[in-house]
């Protein structure tokens, strides 16, 4: 049974999977310059529109892993060995002030750190896979991911120790490839768990696994991006850290993007007002916020439009308040989208696996475990008119916030609207040090 599914799925899934992309990367491709496009190019198309990507892209991406075959999941001694070690988490201070040396030895040091630490992180991830219940782990998509991680692990682990700049260059290319080929991890994880959720008895187990997997992926992505950027001497940037990050600009660009999506779907879109500490700017790595802000705006927009669809008064705007103190950045996203009952509020933080009606339909193209009332995350679809998704936006955002010493809370007033409070720690905080 699994065998046939395995053969069928990769082909039928790839169009679907390619579309379930990280929205952030699409809109980023609008707004950032050419240089960064290749780093964050999650789905291979740089133009923001969605189209079916032919299956061959998948094989092309994996080609540098093609020379490795995983013969056994069981005996992976290197993995076991490294999984026992602790990974070293860097503080942004270390990253920022690693200093630029004339002989580019800072690149060497950075590469050496990654060379040592990335295999450990991947080993931990593989370990998590190995501890999944057997039936869950045998899901073909999860197996594929598992196998891919092992391949990546070996590629990274077997790279010789870096002593010269040429080696460093090669290593950087390897890292770049790693990023590209693991760009569809999120959809695979989502779909894989969705299929096998009926076998999982405890909700918290899934949440813990996914929280760890996603935050670890975020950290690895940020570290690799940072390293790659160290070579490019962008103004105002130290690696991936933007020294004068302005929350207002990010909110404005996210709002523009989400408005487009919303208009395409509903024909209308509410305005976004920004208040609070609008002129604040500080050093920050924008990667996590690039995901969180559009997701939250999407929810707010969707709620607003659906609640006021038939009213002639026009759409109330969504207000984003920026507040910064020494330790954290707080964004309060206020909408007038009618709020949610308590039952829905509880569910919104799940990776949508506690749904009451189990989907017995193996045709996993039906995203609809949740009806339209659920304030899901919007993931752009091709031509289906439903706003639907994996239900990952809110729980993932929360995992990211907590990883950055922050939190994500939602207060809702039934019949009126909801306020989402996004808190993330600042890189320069002394009391709550952020470690990647």
């Amino acid at each position, binding site marked *: 049974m699994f065998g046939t599914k395995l053969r069928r799925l990769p082909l039928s899934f790839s169009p679907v999977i390619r579309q379930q992309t990280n929205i952030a990367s699409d809109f980023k491709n609008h707004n950032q310059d050419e240089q960064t496009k290749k780093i964050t190019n999650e789905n291979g198309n740089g133009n923001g529109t969605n189209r079916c990507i032919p299956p061959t892209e998948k094989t092309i991406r994996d080609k540098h892993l093609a020379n490795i075959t995983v013969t056994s999941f069981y005996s992976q001694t290197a993995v076991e060995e490294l999984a026992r070690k602790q990974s070293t988490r860097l503080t942004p201070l270390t990253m920022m002030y690693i200093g630029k040396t004339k002989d580019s030895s800072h690149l060497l040091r950075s590469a050496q750190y990654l060379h040592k630490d990335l295999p450990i992180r991947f080993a931990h991830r593989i370990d998590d896979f190995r501890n999944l219940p057997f039936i869950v782990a045998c899901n073909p998509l999860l197996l594929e991911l598992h196998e891919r991680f092992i391949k990546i692990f070996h590629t990274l682990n077997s790279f010789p120790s870096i002593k010269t700049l040429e080696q460093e260059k090669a290593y950087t290319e390897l890292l770049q490839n790693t990023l590209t080929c693991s760009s569809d991890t999120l959809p695979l994880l989502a779909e894989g768990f969705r299929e096998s959720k009926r076998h999982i008895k405890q909700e918290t187990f899934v949440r813990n696994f996914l929280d760890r997997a996603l935050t670890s992926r975020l950290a690895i992505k940020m570290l690799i991006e940072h390293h790659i950027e160290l070579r490019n001497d962008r103004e105002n940037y130290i690696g991936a850290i933007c020294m004068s990050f302005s929350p207002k600009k990010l909110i404005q660009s996210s709002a523009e993007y989400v408005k487009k999506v919303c208009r395409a779907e509903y024909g209308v879109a509410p305005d976004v007002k920004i208040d*609070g*500490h609008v002129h604040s700017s500080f050093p920050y790595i924008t990667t996590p916020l690039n995901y969180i802000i559009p997701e939250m705006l999407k929810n707010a927009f969707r709620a607003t439009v659906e609640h006021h669809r038939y009213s002639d008064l026009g759409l109330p705007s969504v207000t984003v*308040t920026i*507040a*910064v*103190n020494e330790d*954290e950045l*707080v964004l*309060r996203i206020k909408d007038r989208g009618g*709020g949610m*009952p*308590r*039952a829905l509020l509880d569910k919104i933080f799940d990776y949508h696996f506690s749904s009451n009606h189990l989907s017995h339909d193996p045709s996993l193209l039906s995203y609809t475990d949740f009806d339209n009332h659920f304030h899901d995350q919007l993931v752009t679809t091709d031509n289906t008119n439903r706003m639907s998704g994996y239900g990952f936006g809110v729980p993932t955002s929360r995992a990211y916030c907590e990883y950055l010493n922050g939190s994500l*809370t939602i*207060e809702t*007033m*039934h*019949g*009126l609207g909801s*306020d989402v*409070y996004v808190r993330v720690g600042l890189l320069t905080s002394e009391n709550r040090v952020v470690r990647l």
Partner: protein
Amino acid sequence: MSFYRYLSSTIKATTNVHSQAPALSGIVKQLSKFSSHDELIEYSQRPIEYCYPNRMIEACSPHHSTPIDLMKTAIDLHEQLLVRLAHCLTHFQSIPFLPGVNPTLLSLHERYLKLFETFAHFPQIKTKEDEKKFLELINIFVVQNNDVIGLLSTGCSEAQKHFKTYKIMKDFLDNVLQIRLSMRLLAEHYLELHKQQKDNSSEWRGAICMNFSPIKAIQQCVNDVSSLCFETYTVVPHVQIENTMNESLPYFPSIIEYILRELLKNSMRAIVECSKASLGNVQNVKQYFEENRDKPLCQIVIASNPIDENFTIAVKDQGGGIDESDEEIFKYMFTGDVMKEEEEEVHMDILADFQERMTQSSKQMYGYGFGLPVCRLYAKFFGGSLTLRQVSRIGVDAYLRLGFIHTNSERIKI
């Protein structure tokens, strides 16, 4: 030594002992009466019988088959209070000795003990005269205990360092305040029922107002706190109220008024002090408030959620926020930046003028740091919650959720 001399010396010795003895045994005597009390033990071992508001509403309904029998209500209340006072006293008895002998806390303990004894020795209510006497007793009970929160806060602030851990003090305060609230509600309910015997209005069923409209109560609270704010600071921030809850519902008005007043006091104080700090002097602040009437610094939003059987009142202010974690803010005794006030207090003769300060505390904008924890306790009591969401350096959003009392889900018990 001659025998006579020996005798005189021993007599002297014993008289010395005697002259010391009264001083010692006075305190010992005073405190040992708290040690054991049979009746108290018996009552404290009985479980509390909870009353459900929806049943209370039904029982007091003019359409009910059996009209309210005040005598029976009095007998029930008598029993209820005995059991609850006993439980309350056990909480006093279980705090460590040293904080327990703090004069304020001890006097409160003693008051409750006396009350218990009065109720215990009150004869069985059989005639109308008995019931009348009982009514008087309850009246005294309610009036006398208006200052309990103030007393507890003074006592605890004095004895704070003697509580080994914060948790002991917190549990003690939570328990005592909870029982006090329930006793108060029941007593007031009984008193109101008596008054309504003559009135016969259908708007009230005992202490429950059937047509309670949150917006009206909140408007009143805003007015009250505004005048208090004006008296204290000579400026008042404008408050905007947005109400989407047009229906009225049965509720205990005193609860909402209490909590809203506390929240508004906090918000207004924060707004005024924050504005003062950034604008310099009061004149500028006044001008600023006037100019910004359309962009209010304090907003109240009311919404009802019939699906989850509760309603929410959100108080959002732009008072600069509090740079402390949630846990800290909700601690008893946390008062924010009131440095000057504390210094003054040290020099005052506390015992001598606590009475004055008790009555003053309701007229003060801030005080002992009991506002938030008590409000949260009350909100929980009514099947709800009080959550504070901070927007750093800008303000605080307080969300008060209270459960409906008239529904059959019986989640709230008194």
